[in-house]
């Protein structure tokens, strides 16, 4: 007879076998597998293709790629863990597994990997659809980044599912999980972008792990995103640890151990201390995420979009691009006193609109009395319309966006200019390498009298100042507009 010693390879085979077992189980449960796999893909086809790329709305399809990727990530975690764990707990399967010599934590690991594999499948198919049918502009790096955001992003939902499964009966679990799933999807801006939701919803957003995850995903693919990625990651880690510890404690109270062969007696107080410590850290991380996850609203006034004031992390897509040419020491960019719209360096100011992105806004400009006057009308053809005038500091004539050079403004502190106009609110935007990221923005009002506007560049924190491609003056508010600028300086 054997002596209870087990070779390492057999233990590893046991872990692997449990993963295969859980996968088989889920694949044979069509009520789980089919909606989990199909729903996010169907929604992506609907919003990303039919309402997005088919209507020329690139932002929409880009947003749908992130949003339904995250939507497809929540279900395997919540349902795969929550609902089925509640059932198996009730059926005594968990108890049985801990009576027989299942390797420590194998049940959890298998379900976690199962959830990650489901997410990986959804994510891969969605990426294929995005690149083919939806024509979402994605680099290889962005695809990989979004894939990993989803695959690891399932973990906080696994933890929440585990907690629900430890708490309620198998009968109640599906209803409870749906009560979390559906409202959280909406409140996290998976159906309507967070920037377009009411302020009250925006204020609550950092509470929902799906919000943090979708922002990470949008950041990864270069969509306009909110908040600091590091904060989002911390919040997600906090949620994961918090619910995981709560679930393990709850299951422990029901006599179910998910881990190993704890020694009797002596170890208990230490474990309790560790438990409490981990719980404390997790709550701290969640609070940090809640405090930091939605920071930009304190900084800007417009509700339509919002820039990132949370941190100085450059957008993922461009941080590897070469640093731009150092900006000239002379502070003056343009005073328009020569009667034209040329600048002292770079490509001059040019009227710009959103037609290239599929919109129907229009803009025209002329130099009037030594100042640049811009007028036109902002349409509602796309999600983020724009019209105004743009300056390419290191631009080349007739080159497409990707070929335009960068300017390194990292040693400059302030952008200043004079402005007047029809009394509406306008914005200055600075953009980096990617056309499709949310630009750094600063709002100003152009009233009837000339007014000096000073913008500390540190308020443009989301732009990587070493890689500035474009500085724009204009508006996103639908309707006719007219404003003038003069004496544009960067020093």
């Amino acid at each position: 007879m054997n002596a209870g010693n087990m070779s390492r390879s057999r233990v590893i085979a046991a872990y692997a076998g449990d993963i295969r077992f859980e996968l088989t189980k889920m694949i044979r449960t069509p009520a789980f597998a089919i909606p989990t796999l199909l729903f996010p893909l169907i929604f992506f086809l609907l919003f990303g293709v039919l309402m997005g790329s088919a209507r020329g709305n690139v932002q929409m399809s880009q947003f749908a790629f992130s949003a339904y990727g995250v939507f497809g990530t929540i279900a395997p975690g919540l349902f795969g863990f929550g609902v089925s764990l509640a059932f198996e707990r009730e059926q005594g399967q968990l108890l049985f597994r801990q009576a027989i010599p299942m390797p420590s934590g194998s049940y959890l690991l298998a379900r976690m990997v199962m959830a990650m594999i489901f997410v990986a499948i959804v994510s891969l198919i969605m990426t294929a659809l995005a690149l083919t049918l939806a024509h979402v502009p994605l680099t290889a790096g962005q695809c990989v980044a979004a894939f990993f955001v989803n695959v690891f992003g399932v973990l906080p939902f696994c933890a929440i599912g585990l907690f629900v499964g430890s708490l309620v009966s198998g009968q109640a679990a599906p209803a409870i999980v749906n009560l979390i799933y559906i409202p959280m999807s909406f409140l996290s801006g998976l159906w309507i972008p967070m920037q377009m939701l009411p302020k009250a919803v925006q204020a609550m957003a950092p509470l929902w792990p799906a919000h943090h995850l979708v922002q990470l995903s949008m950041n990864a693919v270069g969509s306009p995103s909110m908040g600091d990625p590091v904060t989002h990651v911390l919040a997600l880690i906090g949620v994961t640890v918090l619910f995981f510890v709560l679930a393990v404690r709850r299951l422990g109270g029901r006599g179910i151990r998910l881990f190993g062969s704890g020694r009797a007696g002596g170890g208990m107080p230490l474990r309790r201390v560790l438990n409490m410590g981990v719980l404390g850290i997790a709550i701290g991380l969640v609070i940090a995420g809640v405090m930091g996850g939605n920071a930009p609203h304190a900084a800007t006034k417009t509700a339509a979009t919002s820039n990132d004031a949370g941190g100085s992390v450059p957008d993922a897509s461009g941080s590897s691009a070469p640093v731009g040419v150092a900006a000239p020491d002379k502070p003056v960019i343009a005073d328009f006193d020569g009667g034209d719209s040329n600048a002292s360096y770079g490509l001059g100011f040019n009227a710009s609109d959103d037609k290239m992105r599929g919109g129907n806004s229009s803009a025209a400009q002329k130099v009037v009395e030594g100042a640049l006057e811009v007028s036109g009308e902002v349409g509602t053809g796309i999600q983020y319309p724009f019209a105004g005038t743009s300056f390419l500091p290191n631009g080349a004539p007739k080159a497409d966006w990707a070929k335009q050079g960068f300017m390194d403004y990292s040693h400059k502190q302030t952008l200043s200019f004079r402005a007047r106009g029809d009394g509406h609110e306008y914005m200055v935007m600075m953009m980096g390498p990617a056309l499709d990221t949310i630009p750094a923005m600063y709002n100003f009002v152009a009233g009837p009298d000339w007014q000096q506007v000073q913008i500390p560049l540190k308020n443009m924190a989301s732009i990587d100042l070493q890689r500035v491609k474009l500085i724009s003056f204009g508006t996103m508010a639908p309707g006719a507009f007219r404003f003038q600028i003069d004496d544009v300086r960067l020093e």
Partner: protein
Amino acid sequence: MSSTPLARLDNAHKQFGKIAALDGLNLAVNRGELLALLGPNGAGKSTAISLLLGLQRPDRGAAELFGEDPHSIDARRRIGVMMQEINLSPVMRPRELIAQTASYYPSPYDTPVVIKRLGIEKIADRPYGKLSGGQKRQAQFAMAICGRPELLFLDEPTVGLDVQAREALWQVLRDLIHEGCSIVLTTHYLEEAEALADRVAVVTHGKLVAGGTVDEIRAHVSRKSVLCRSELPIATMRAWPEVLQVTEDSGRRHIVTRDAEAVLRALLAADAQVRDIEVRRAGLAEAFAEITNSNQASTNQPGSVQ
């Protein structure tokens, strides 16, 4: 019983709210024996098994498996378990369930070998959820033995089995014992204990109230049955000294007594026509009834099984 026991409860106490599920239970399982754990529902049998499996911890006293904490995975790698009232995943097949359980053990039997040994080829590839109650028990039994365990815990293994399947399972248990496996079995089929057990432990109110071989338990009990055919009124028989109970079954009187000789004298004296007299020692059922009843009446000094 020379060697150290494979599993042991030492003065184990376990309280659930106000109810003492175990109240100082002593129990030891020796190598190569089949120990049957008997007792009415709620007596503490399942709690005792839970403690030995490490599913619960005693409030006081000790539970040991192979001299170790039952939580130890090394100890659990030497046991096989068949629990009551569990449902396995309905979409998985017995073959897969057995293979999964076998993968947890250092040197299990090959899954096809287990399936063949138990003669469950026909159900091996059917979804577990589509099996009958008895077939589910067979699949669970296969999972219990697939790891080549030294000690097997079986909680009501034959519930729901037809007579044939039960006989077959008993034969496997006898073979396993012969191969050196030890078995702890709870059952409420007394004939199961009588047919298989080397030793019986009777538990009521969380205490061991009697323990020993089946014969010892029987001997422990003074009751005997006198069977006969007689025309005497039942009331007359009931009035005799030492008669505990008189019943009639298809014309045959069944007199339960503590003193068979006295009953026989009275019977022969009162009825010259009496026929077909037979005196039987109590079966395990009677023994069990008496032990548990007397224990309910008074808190006897519990016996000790060693």
